[in-house]
């Protein structure tokens, strides 16, 4: 058998990962250098991607190089960048000043729980930046230096930043427990922006940004490719349900512009959720359109800099204006919704050319989205279900025992807690919650958000996924849970690995997929297979089953 590599799950033995030491290290954290071990870091951004975006210092380099080829005067660049951000962001300034190192955040971080590395305690992650801030920006630090918790900015500090700011998924769980509400995500973002000034990016983030800038989506799918992709999905939909659907693309004058993260165009199980959207819109007679120019709701700019975020986000309102739609509907995604909720209106608004969203099905006006004009698919579906507009037969999902993973951004960031649960309860008869301190505002991250969901980073993903994986295993053992629903494309990609590793046997699904599988469509054929083209237990003869599995395997 081939020996597995550090970017493969099989490389890691559970008993090795579980040998955890959460205690302090022998050397002071300021004197402990980073150990770049394969599987714990992400490869650097390629020069070609930096050039697409006109970013500084494009070059090809490796994390394991001694010399990272920092630009001339790099120290000055970092300190000036820091000064500029301290004056612009009150969050940054306040969070640099007010921490009292009480330690309440320490054991709340999934990366600390799963790795035991002290610098993965949110407090120390922030101290990496704070120590430089103290040394160069505070009176006490200037006079007393190390005694006041300050330290010199050296290339080793930069390496440390690179390692640990790309070991934070910006999930904000720590901020829930911080007495001052210090949001480590904001600190990580600042750290990444400062690294960016020196041309230090990870390719897993910056290539999607470059792609999205040029082609409208992270994967670089070109317009004709996107059309093909959606048509393939339509064929599968027809095979599963017997229904033929239209695929409106760049349609002027449609009522709604629909967008969703591009991850759902290519990878299972996200594609089933994407199929579900099209099927539901077809059935409900919604006048919507896809856009090829704004074909990604996701925005890896969020993981790069506020400027990159704005450069990508501008497309959505611009496209809504060009197509002349009335309002915008967004699919299941995590960080895409963080951008919509927290930034979009400010950086790309005002969207005064759009109307306040109003459901064509129920007449409900979504007042809470009065300014952004963007509604979440769960809000839309929950409203439709409430008004009895969806013909659901939850018993079709009776073979599924489902639990729900709150995505950090929608749960903690926005407070969308009830809508997805309401929708799931209406689509499934068997719904079980994970333990209380792992859901809702206290939800545990998938371990792969904020641009860390790549296989290069496999060890950290498995470690970061340990708390979530353990909670899934808990409901698997106690309630026989076999599916985990999540309304985030990154979750749907990374939790597959987490579940396979920590709770094997649990599949990952989107919520809309559950809805589409439970829904009775007008003119549907006898539903023997779900959207994955997997046979629905109790609906197929024994002989039929093997044949369909073959079909699915050929896809």
């Amino acid at each position, binding site marked *: 058998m081939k020996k597995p590599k550090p970017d493969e799950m099989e490389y890691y033995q559970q008993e090795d990962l579980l040998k955890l030491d*959460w205690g*302090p290290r022998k050397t002071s954290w300021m004197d402990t250098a980073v150990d770049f071990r394969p599987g714990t870091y992400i490869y650097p951004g390629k020069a070609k991607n930096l050039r697409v975006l006109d970013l500084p210092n494009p070059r090809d380099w490796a994390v394991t190089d001694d010399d990272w080829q920092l630009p001339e005067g790099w120290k000055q660049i970092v300190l000036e960048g820091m000064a500029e951000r301290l004056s612009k962001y009150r969050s940054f300034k306040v969070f640099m000043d*007010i921490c009292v190192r009480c330690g309440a955040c320490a054991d709340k971080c999934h990366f600390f729980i799963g790795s035991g590395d002290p610098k993965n*305690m949110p407090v120390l992650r922030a101290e990496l930046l704070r120590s430089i801030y103290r040394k160069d920006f505070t009176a006490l630090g200037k006079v007393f230096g190390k005694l006041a*918790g300050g330290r010199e900015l050296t290339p080793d500090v930069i390496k440390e930043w690179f390692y640990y700011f790309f070991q934070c998924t910006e999930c904000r769980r720590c901020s829930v427990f911080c007495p*001052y509400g210090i949001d480590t995500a904001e600190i990580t973002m600042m750290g990444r922006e400062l690294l960016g000034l020196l041309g230090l990016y990870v390719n897993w983030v910056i290539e999607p940004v470059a792609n999205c800038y040029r082609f409208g989506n992270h994967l670089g799918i070109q317009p004709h490719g996107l059309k093909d992709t959606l048509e393939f999905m339509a064929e599968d939909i027809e095979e599963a349900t017997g229904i033929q659907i239209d695929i409106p693309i760049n349609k002027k004058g449609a009522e709604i512009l629909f967008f969703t993260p591009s991850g759902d165009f290519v990878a299972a199980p996200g594609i089933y959720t994407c199929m579900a959207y099209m099927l539901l819109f077809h059935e409900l007679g919604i006048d919507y359109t896809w856009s090829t120019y704004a074909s990604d709701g996701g925005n890896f700019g969020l993981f790069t800099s506020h400027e990159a975020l704005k450069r990508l986000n501008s497309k959505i309102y611009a496209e809504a204006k060009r197509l002349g739609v009335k309002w915008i509907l967004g699919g299941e995604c995590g960080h895409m919704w963080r951008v919509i*909720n*927290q930034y979009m209106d400010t950086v790309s608004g005002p969207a005064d050319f759009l109307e306040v969203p109003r459901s064509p099905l129920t007449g409900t006006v979504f007042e809470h989205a*009065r300014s952004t004009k963007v509604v979440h698919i769960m809000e839309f579906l929950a409203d439709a279900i409430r008004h009895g507009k969806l013909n659901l037969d939850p018993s079709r999902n009776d073979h599924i025992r489902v639990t729900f993973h709150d995505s950090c951004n929608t749960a903690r960031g926005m407070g969308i807690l009830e809508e997805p649960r309401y929708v799931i309860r209406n689509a499934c008869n068997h719904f079980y919650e994970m333990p209380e301190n792992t859901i809702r505002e206290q939800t545990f991250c998938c371990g792969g958000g904020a641009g860390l969901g790549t296989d290069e980073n496999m060890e950290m993903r498995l470690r970061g996924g340990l708390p979530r994986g353990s909670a899934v295993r808990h409901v698997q053992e106690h309630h026989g849970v076999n599916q985990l629903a999540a309304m985030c494309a990154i979750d749907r990609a990374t939790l597959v690995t987490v579940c396979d590793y920590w709770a094997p046997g649990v599949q990952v699904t989107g919520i809309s997929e559950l809805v589409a599988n439970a829904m009775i469509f007008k003119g549907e054929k006898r539903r023997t297979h779900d959207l994955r083209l997997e046979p629905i237990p109790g609906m197929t003869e024994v002989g039929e089953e093997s044949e369909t599995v073959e079909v699915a395997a050929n896809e």
Partner: protein
Amino acid sequence: MHWSMLIILLRHLRLFTNPVPFFVTALERADGFMEVGLPVVFITTVVFVVALAYLLYRRLAIGQVRYISLVGDYFPLFLLLGIGISGFWLRHLAKTDIASVKEMVLGLARFAPVVPETISPLFYGHLFLVCVLLAYLPFSKLTHMAGVFLSPTRNMANNNRTVRHVNPWDYPVKVHTYEEYEDELREKMKSAGIPVERQ
């Protein structure tokens, strides 16, 4: 502990004012209702010292917390402990002559200092530590209280979808416009049957 500190502070008003305000006397009566010892031991004194000792113990005994601690985390603890213990000593063991202390303090306040000889050096130690505290306070983590009110995650509403928040330093960024996008991909879009703006 925070309440203790406030009450202790108010109790000290006795040393600065004449006549002693009624609420100070009332506080003293409530604070000493257990009537242990003579002079009566105040509950707040005990709570203050014990709470500080616990905070110090926690910082030393829990490995992770010790690992993240800086000098700036220990210093205020020792300072406050010093103030608390010397204060306790002055009241219960050294039995300070409060009348002369008051004479001296009021003398200072009137810019006509007098130095009564009956005051122990320990009192000056206590006073010195308090002065250090006052000087150190604004630069130290002890102003952490401000953070509770200043933290944007604590004092801003999560209403961005309803209300537009304007960024005062907003600036234009370079974007890839639809026209540039279509110019690059027009032929591919046309052959796939996707509508375009210009033929």
